[in-house]
């Protein structure tokens, strides 16, 4: 771990195969973002494996204080990612749960070593695309103005800061306008949004206002929790701005 508590990944060679961990929100609500993520990886000549036994990283229970239940679900994942291939996750939050919190969650358990080994192989998607695959995208879409929302856990647990913007800036016809409060939480916070609906609404309200001020046509994000919250609020408020996962956005722009 680095000085500020974020995970720092040692550089690795481009692997022949990777695992894809889809996450439970992607699975149910944004499967097309998951498919886009896998296709982006495949387009770079990497073989992608999607273990059908996978379900969830355990974060919802973990953050609610139910650690035993979180452990049970996390443990069930270990079997599906044997070997040494990197595990790529299209969500900073779930990647953070696996690489930062699993070691604590499994502390003192018989499978602690195995959990640590799996945790050490976890990459957030944009981090993997930039740092390991060193992708260069060519834009094939029409001109558009967009903005970027940084997920809290991607930036503050996984240490993902510039990678998504590096990717978006490779797209020649995409104008990226930065939010004034790019790093501020959108108010999702898992169960927070339903436990404290009014505060959460105020937070997402500020976020939506910030997005509108940029004049962007779309807000791109790398986390489905944020996306569900922000695009839900945009739609609920009848704002003509679309929320889209970065994997899907990149795929749309580069594969027609």
């Amino acid at each position, binding site marked *: 771990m680095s000085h500020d508590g974020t995970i720092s990944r040692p550089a690795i060679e481009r692997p022949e195969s990777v695992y894809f961990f889809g996450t439970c929100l992607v699975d149910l609500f944004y499967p097309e973002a998951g498919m886009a993520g896998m296709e982006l990886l495949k387009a770079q000549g990497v073989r992608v494996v999607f273990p059908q036994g996978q379900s969830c990283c355990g974060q919802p229970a973990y953050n609610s*204080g139910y650690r035993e239940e979180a452990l049970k679900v996390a443990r069930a994942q270990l079997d599906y990612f044997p070997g040494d291939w990197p595990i790529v996750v299209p969500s900073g939050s779930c990647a953070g749960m696996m690489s930062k919190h699993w070691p604590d969650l499994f502390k003192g358990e018989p499978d602690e070593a195995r959990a640590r080994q799996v945790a050490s192989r976890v990459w957030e998607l944009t981090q993997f695309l930039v740092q390991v695959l060193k992708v260069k995208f060519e834009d094939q879409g029409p001109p558009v103005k967009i903005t970027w929302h940084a997920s809290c856990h991607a930036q503050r647990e996984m240490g993902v800061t510039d990678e998504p913007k590096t990717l978006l800036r490779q797209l020649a016809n995409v104008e990226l306008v930065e939010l004034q409060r790019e790093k*501020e939480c959108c108010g999702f916070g898992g169960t927070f949004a339903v436990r404290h609906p009014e505060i959460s609404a105020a937070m997402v309200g500020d976020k939506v206002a910030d997005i509108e001020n940029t004049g962007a046509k779309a807000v791109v994000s790398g986390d489905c929790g944020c996306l569900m919250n922000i695009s839900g609020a945009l739609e609920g408020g009848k704002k003509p701005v679309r929320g889209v996962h970065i994997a899907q956005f990149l795929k749309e722009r580069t594969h027609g």
Partner: protein
Amino acid sequence: MGETSINFAKASSAALQDQQLRGNFRRAMDGLMSKRAVQFADTAEWNGVRTLGASVRLRALSKLPELLEKLEANCTRNGIQVHWASTTDEANAIVLSIMQRVNAKLVVKGKSMVSEEMHLNAFLEKHGIESLESDLGEYIVQLDEAMPSHIIMPAIHMNTKQIAHLFKQKIKEAEYTEDVAQLTDLARRVLRKKFATADVGISGVNMAVAETGTLCLVENEGNGRMSTTVPPVHIAVMGLEKVVEKLEDVPPVISLLTRSATAQPITTYVNMISSPRKEGEKDGPNEIHLVILDNGRSGIYADEELRNTLRCIRCGACMNHCPVYTKVGGHAYQAPYPGPIGSILMPQVEGLEKRGELPHACTMCNACVEICPVKIPIVEIMGRLRSEAVHPGDAVKGAGSHASKAEAMVWKGWSMTYASPLAYQFATALLAKLGNAAPASLPLLKEWTNVRSKPRFANRTLHALAREKGIPDV
């Protein structure tokens, strides 16, 4: 405020309705954040000084009992009388007995969060002693009969207009003015008279140095110096974690404190108090008392993970950067310490039965962790407290008090489904088919859809799509 009426959700809901308050906080915190960013613009310097600050605090905590003994011995040698209080009631009683001995009627106070924790003003008032806050912000909230809403800027929830009205209403000689200089002047005139006639001065302590028996006090207005030098008796109150080992530990912590708190590279006054007035000296109190308060801290100290809470130097940066605090303000927490640090400290000090809601006043965004100058893993401790709240145990008072059978059943069911591939795929396939039929009026969904559209389940799960597209499984 009643002992049982602590309800963060309700209080924050009221705060959110108050547009003036929301505006005041947003503006004030935006300003503080950008000013602080300038102070720590050099990342390498920030990392260095922060690591140093954290190590000073960690070293102090690693030998806390030993340092406290040393502090007591050295203070006593210097002529400072040391008192130990295990509860706030005991601390209040100690303060009162000193006052009664010198027959004190009027007390002036410098800013002290521990005295807020003790509800000292109300206590003294009950015993016929007038206690006047001399820090401008504290003075304003005292006039307003309110609690501080921030640990560094107690009246940050009010704007100039509101303060102008308050002064006009509460101070006899006041003319209505919105001129900040004139308002400050007015407060100063009122306070000056009181400084001259007060029997006792009370202050907090920013740091107490074990090796020298020195009390270190940082402030901007000079009121701290007045409170600790003019009255014949000075009583300092501190939490037992405020000790540092050596004199050389002081500068890095002060630098982190002032830059994190108000973005000042240095502060106007640093008071280093090491003894009462000696023979031949022209000023200073004849007696100095140091009250060291435990109030649950030794219990926090006993747990290795929770102990990190005690690293805190009370700079308030975590609240300035907290997206929840900046929306609802400090009063919603109904606690002397609001914001992220309050959300972990209050449940440990007062118990989870009473404060178990506070660890949930957080989205776990980690903005506080990123900013904390002594690197307290606030969010990790928050998670630990959430877990303590629902599981019986003995580390934190009231552990298990928020356990609900229904909630536990939900998570048990969840874990059974999510730990079994078959059950999981069956459940998710079912949700993909039928989930969208759920009416928006369902309990949790209703809260969500107040401002948002209903989340839409995709027709087919990622698992199903991956199978269809022939993505290999192993």
